[in-house]
């Protein structure tokens, strides 16, 4: 294999690889084309709404000087959690050498990539002046690092994006060439990415937790809670994805991987609920002004109850899902388990999306109570960013899995060798999983 390691060799094979990726990415069944067509249509509707917002001003949104962040930043927060959640596959695969998880870990890494695209998208659509985004570029703009937490977020999100892009790209390329991946070229990056995954959600929590004027956010539990809920949504999304992969592709998903992810979900959903209980106790037992936002969220304040039905639905969805994860007789039914996965995904989306962002602004810093409802334009833009993220995820997954199964290989690649499927793991924790 050494003969093809030279840079000259890659200069020849890499363009061929990219062409092949483009070909694979745009080829598929009628199901694939329909799915991509629908997503493209939604993304275009979103882009159009965003273009109008840029041209005519953010008055097209429901935001105001009282509630100055809304649906976009809520979804941004959730998307960062989704990106961080993928690490719950990377840790078992690489730190505990779980063989089953190792086979499918690339799904978690691809989810991280797609979710970061969404997170960055949600930041861009929230900017009043996206034409000035270059002011954020270190060197040519004025990057207020290390003082502004937002600059930290720019660093960690883009860094996490690059790390995952490198690891995934390298693995797919070597699979395409039919070579065994050289651990020196990806393992160090994998280990950095594990620490980095925690950093992206911690820094995102610090964006809010660092604001003394917003008592609802200004608490030390925010970052741990962000991580706990990220480890609910990430694995939940991946378990659903793996079942779709099993059904629609030739890729074989080991059952052990799904079992392990459900085990992780059991713990993470309980930790998330426990932290919620700790927060509710602190707010409501103490009472007073610091609980005003929590009162607005859970019970309504001065006749305003906009978020009350949402947050109780979120609680019901999360508790219901936790009960399913914890009850063997229930989770044994695939349909019930899948229902619980969807439920908790939606529950966390409400809870750490609108349920976290909006009460930070209601009541306002002068204790005024100005409600917020997203406009149709905001929903369009939000749906557009989600569609874009799902498109990235679908295409990336399609290409990656075809490389993994050997459906996409270089013309001169050596024949598939079972021994090369995955690096061997001594003392695999495989047996301990169930």
């Amino acid at each position, binding site marked *: 294999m050494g003969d093809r390691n030279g840079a000259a060799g890659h200069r020849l094979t890499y363009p061929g690889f990219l062409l092949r990726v483009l070909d694979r990415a745009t080829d598929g069944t009628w199901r694939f084309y329909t799915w991509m067509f629908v997503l493209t249509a939604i993304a275009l509707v979103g882009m*159009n709404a965003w273009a109008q917002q840029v*041209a005519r001003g953010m008055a097209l949104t429901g935001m105001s000087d009282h509630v*100055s*962040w809304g649906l976009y930043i809520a979804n941004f927060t959730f998307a960062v959690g989704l990106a961080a959640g993928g690490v719950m596959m990377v840790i078992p695969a690489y730190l505990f050498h779980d063989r089953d998880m190792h086979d499918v870990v690339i799904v978690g890494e691809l989810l991280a990539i797609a979710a970061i695209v969404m997170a960055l998208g949600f930041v861009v659509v929230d900017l009043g002046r996206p034409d000035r985004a270059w*002011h954020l570029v270190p060197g040519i703009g004025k990057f207020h690092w290390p003082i502004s937490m937002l600059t930290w977020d720019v660093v960690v999100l883009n860094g996490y994006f690059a790390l995952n892009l490198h690891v995934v790209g390298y693995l797919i390329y070597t699979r395409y060439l039919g070579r065994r991946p050289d651990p020196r070229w990806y393992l160090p990056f994998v280990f950095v990415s594990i620490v980095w995954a925690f950093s992206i959600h911690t820094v995102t929590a610090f964006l809010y937790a660092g604001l003394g004027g917003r008592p609802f956010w200004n608490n030390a539990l925010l970052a741990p809670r962000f991580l706990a809920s990220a480890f609910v949504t990430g694995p939940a999304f991946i378990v659903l994805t793996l079942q779709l992969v099993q059904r629609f592709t030739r890729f074989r998903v080991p059952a052990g991987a799904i079992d392990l992810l459900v085990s992780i979900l059991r713990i993470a959903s309980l930790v998330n609920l426990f932290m919620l209980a700790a927060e509710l106790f602190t707010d409501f037992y103490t009472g007073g002004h610091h609980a005003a936002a929590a009162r607005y969220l859970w019970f309504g304040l001065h006749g305003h109850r906009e978020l009350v039905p949402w947050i109780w639905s979120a609680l019901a969805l999360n508790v219901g899902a936790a009960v399913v994860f914890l009850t063997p007789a229930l989770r044994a039914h695939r349909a019930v388990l899948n229902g619980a996965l969807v439920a908790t995904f939606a529950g966390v989306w409400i809870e750490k999306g609108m349920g976290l962002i909006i009460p930070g602004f209601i009541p306002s*810093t002068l*204790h005024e109570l100005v409600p917020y409802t997203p406009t149709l334009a905001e929903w369009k833009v939000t749906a557009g960013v989600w569609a874009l993220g799902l498109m990235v995820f679908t295409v990336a997954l399609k290409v990656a899995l075809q490389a993994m199964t050997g459906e996409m290989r270089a013309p001169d690649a050596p024949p598939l060798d079972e021994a090369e499927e995955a690096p061997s793991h001594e003392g695999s924790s495989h047996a301990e999983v169930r």
Partner: protein
Amino acid sequence: MSDDPRPTRRVALKVLGASLGAGAFARALAPLQQIEKYTSPAEFLQKHYRELSRDELHAVLRRLEGETKNRYGREVTIRDIRPTEGVQFAYALNLSVCIGCRRCVEACHVENNHDRASHQSYIRVLEMEQGSLDMERGRTDYDHAVPAPGHFYMPVQCQQCQNPPCTKVCPVEATWQEADGIVVVDYNWCIGCRYCEAACPYHARRFNWRAPEIPADEINPQQSYLSNRIRPQGVVEKCTFCLHRTREGRLPACLEACPTGARVFGNVADPDSEIRWVLEHKRIFVLKEELGTMPRFFYFFDV
């Protein structure tokens, strides 16, 4: 699908699909063509205020005057007025005499070329219940004869904190504290993320949700770059203690409009100033002192 017997046809279909997609994409983004209404190549490439040379700044000011003429139909003068060495501004407000008439709110609206449609102003007046400093029991939307019995009034505007949370969070240094203590925004550098608006504990910042509307004859033509010039769409703005007036020895518009003399403004570094006398002799307090923001805006009761 790779074993398709007609690969060229397949490729042709893909190219067709991609072209249609690209066309739809261009169509979806077409509204972006309108942004030439508020930006230009010169505006796009403009450097940060503090990095502009004297000549560059001069060119920027003339360009902005031209843009104001084009868009709002009014000749204005936009100047760059710098802080004076040894001056430290502070503001004090006597809650015993404020009657809640909101003339300061109105004066700010006119002086600072605020959007007429939203009736924007940097000042909000809270009607408070006698015997409580609890803002939760105050309200800003009172609509009756003032002063109402059993109430006192507390105008709130930018507190010009010595430890401002808003400048800390700005990712692009578009807002900072000047040598005389005034916190300013470079409206041509702000990216509109509104992080400062979330960080401010005093609701002092405003965002331009759309381009401000002002009839030409209502525009205050005496403007400065860092304060009352008409702001662009999509950027954050705030009270600047009327620096275009105060840095030249005049008083803020809100103070001049006050009919009861509740407002005291001046240079605390000057031992003979009225503001210095108030800070030394009155029992003053600041809002949300526990946050450590160290406001330069003080409140006091006379009795």
